[in-house]
Each structure stands twice: as C-alpha cells, then as structure tokens.
C-alpha cells in the first residue's frame, strides 16, 4: 500500500486539488472571490464537450468492445439499484424523513462528471488506459437513479412525487447528458482526424481549465458548507463518506464481472461512488419540492465530492489494481 500512499499524497498536491481547496478556503474566509455564473457554465460545457469527444475518439480507435453494451446495461442497473442501498443506509444511520432520504438517495445512484474527469486524469498519469466508452457509461448512469428515487417515494413515502408528463423527457434530455452523449458520438464519427483538428482546444488546455473549474467548485462547495452547517449532522456526514465507499465496492464487483481493464474498473468504482450535483438536484426540485435542497446539495458537493477527489480516487485506483493485478 506504499504506492497508494504515494499516489494519494501526489494527488493531494496536484494543482487540481489545490485549486479546489483554495476555493473552499476563500469561501470559508468570506472572500468575495467568485467566478461569474456564465463563465462557470462555459467551463462545464467545455469539460463535457472535451470528455465526451475524447471518449468517442477512443472508441473509434479501439473499436466497439463486446463488453460495451453490457457495461452500459450494468451502469443503468447500478444507477437504479444504488439509491435503494443509499435509502436504506440513510434511514438506518440518520433521522432524515422518507422524502429527504429518497431525494438524497437519488443523488448517489447518479454520477458526478467532474469526479469522473479527475479520476480519468489520475488513471492516465498512473499509466492506465480506461475504456473510452466509460464516458458513455457515465452518461447512462445520470438519469435512472432519479426514477429510482421517485419509486422509493411512491413505495414508502406519504407525499407523492410530481411525476407529470414531461419530467422523464426533461430528465433524459438534460443539457449535460445531451452534450456528453452528442460529443461522444461526434468524437466516434470523426475519430482521430477530428481529434487532430480540435486537440489544441480540448486536449492541451484541459488540465488548466479543470483547475479553474475546480476553483469554482471549491467556492460553491465552501459556500454551501458555510451556509448549511446546521443541517450536516454526524450521521449525514458519515453517510457522505460511507456511501461512496459502498458504491465503489459495488462498482468494483460489477467492473470485475464485466472484465474491464484496471482503468475501467477504477472508473466504474468512481462512477458508482460519486454523487450527482447537476441533473438530480434539478429533477428533485421539480418532482420532490418538499425535499430540502440544502441536505442533498451539501452532502453531494460538500462532503462526497471532496472525499472522492482527495482520498477516494487514489483508494479506488489502488483497489482496482490489487483486484485486477493491473
């Protein structure tokens, strides 16, 4: 495990993590440092386009693996299943209402694309080459968890979720899913030729843009933590750290069963371990307005995201290597 510690230490001192910490620190210190909303959105659009495109180009290069379809199906299944585990855990170790617990649970079945990006970077610097279609798995995992959360409410809740026509369409056509999947197919269609054309835009400055984006994430997470200290009980905090570990375990098992490469297993773990903070929160506001957004946003962005970013990813890398011998 010495190598793990080295990687963890190395990870903790990467500019990406340090800029995230700078953001958190600035928010806690009540600095007026802030990234304009339009710029933050522009950065997230850039990252989605770049990561989707790269995944597609990689699939174009390596051909369609036989496990691709299985991985997509497994991703969807995990996204459906993880909220149930999360819900049970939450009801066990916290005092959240059914509504709040279901809403939080939905977040943990879905994924965080920046966590995925950060894990991909670490995988690549560690010499692994994860399957390019993992980005499609990420896209597939975004939405099912929402339906799962609504099903939990319908089954165990007293308030009813607002499942009006249009919600499903809205969830599936969420901007980040459309951009990620669209860029993936464009990357697939244009392959290396396309990549050569736009690599100086999506490859070279990528890590730097990621730093700036994580500065923003740190500012938002820090502000959230500052405002929502009161909702963050010990039980919730424990959930925010335990659940990613459980998710990563489930992800590891699934990845091994699928026969993914070491990098693929690691990314599957990361996807299962990460929690949504874009698609799911928005869907919950529409369908489950009674659930308290401070709880799920604080847990997802304020606890689980930093945990994965700093400690989780190196751990998942080490475990994936140990399990796959990679």
């Amino acid at each position, binding site marked *: 495990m010495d190598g793990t510690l080295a990687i963890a230490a190395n990870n903790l001192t990467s500019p990406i993590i340090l800029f995230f910490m700078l953001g958190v620190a600035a928010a806690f210190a009540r600095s007026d440092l802030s990234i304009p909303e339009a710029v933050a959105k522009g950065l997230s659009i850039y990252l989605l386009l770049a990561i989707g495109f790269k995944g597609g180009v990689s699939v174009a290069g390596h051909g369609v693996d036989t496990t691709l379809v299985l991985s997509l199906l497994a991703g969807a299944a995990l996204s459906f299943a993880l909220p149930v585990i999360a819900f049970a855990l939450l009801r066990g170790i916290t005092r959240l209402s059914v509504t709040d617990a279901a809403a939080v649970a939905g977040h943990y079945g879905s994924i965080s694309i920046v966590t995925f990006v950060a894990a991909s970077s670490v995988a690549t610097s560690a010499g692994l080459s994860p399957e390019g279609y993992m980005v499609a798995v990420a896209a597939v995992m975004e939405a099912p968890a929402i339906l799962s959360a609504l099903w939990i409410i319908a089954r165990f809740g007293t308030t009813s979720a607002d499942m009006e026509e249009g919600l499903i369409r809205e969830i599936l056509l969420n901007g980040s899913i459309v951009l990620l999947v669209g860029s993936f197919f464009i990357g697939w269609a244009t392959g290396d030729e396309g990549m050569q054309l736009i690599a100086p835009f999506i490859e070279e400055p990528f890590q730097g843009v990621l730093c700036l984006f994580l500065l*923003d994430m740190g500012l938002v997470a820090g502000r959230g933590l500052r405002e929502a200290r009161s909702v963050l009980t010990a039980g919730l905090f424990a959930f925010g750290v335990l659940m990613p570990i459980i998710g990563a375990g489930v992800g590891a098992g699934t990845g091994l069963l699928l026969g993914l490469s070491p990098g693929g297993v690691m990314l599957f773990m990361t996807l299962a371990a990460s929690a949504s903070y874009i698609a799911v929160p928005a869907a919950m506001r529409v369908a489950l307005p009674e659930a308290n957004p401070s709880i799920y946003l604080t847990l997802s962005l304020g606890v689980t995201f930093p945990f994965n970013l700093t400690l989780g990813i190196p751990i998942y890398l080490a475990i994936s290597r140990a399990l796959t011998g990679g």
Partner: protein
Amino acid sequence: MQTHTAKRVEIIIEAVMEERLTAALRKAGVTGFTVMPVLGGSGRSGQWTQEGEIGRARGMVNVACIIRPDRLDTLLDAAFEVVDRHIGVVSVVDCEVLRAERF
C-alpha cells in the same frame, strides 16, 4: 398622455419551474410576459446566490406580467397551480399602462 388601468404581476419562481409556469400562462391565454434574471436571495429556505453555479437547482427567475384587471384571476389561478408545492413569491400591483390595445 392617455393611460389605462392594469395589473402588474411579478412571480419569483425557481428556474426549473419557469417553462412549466410560462406554459401554464399561455394555456390560460396569458401570452404577454417578461422573464428577468435573479442573482440570489433569502427566504424561509435560507440564503442563496447564483454566483459560480453550474446547475439549476438553486436558481430563480422573475416573471413579470402586465394584464387587464379582469384577466387577473385567470392568471393567478394558472400561476398558483404551478407554484403551489414550490417555493416562490407572487405579488400584484396596480398600474397604469400606455397603449392598452397591446394587453
């Protein structure tokens, strides 16, 4: 200058509900409204700001709607249906407008 009595309704509503609100308004025959941005705010559900946010879970918008007094109740009914379970504020002010034929 000739002016006419009207009502100015302002609905501060979550950004995720904007499309549902404007669809409901149009369905109720209210076709004139203007959507304006919101930077942040505070209420029973705490204080928030849109700064640096990339998601839409927290954002709000302000939908302003000037309407003939006799159409007010239709509008409020339509709006209420949408805001009902959601956070947000609906306020109505008496106003005078130029060019009443436009409303």
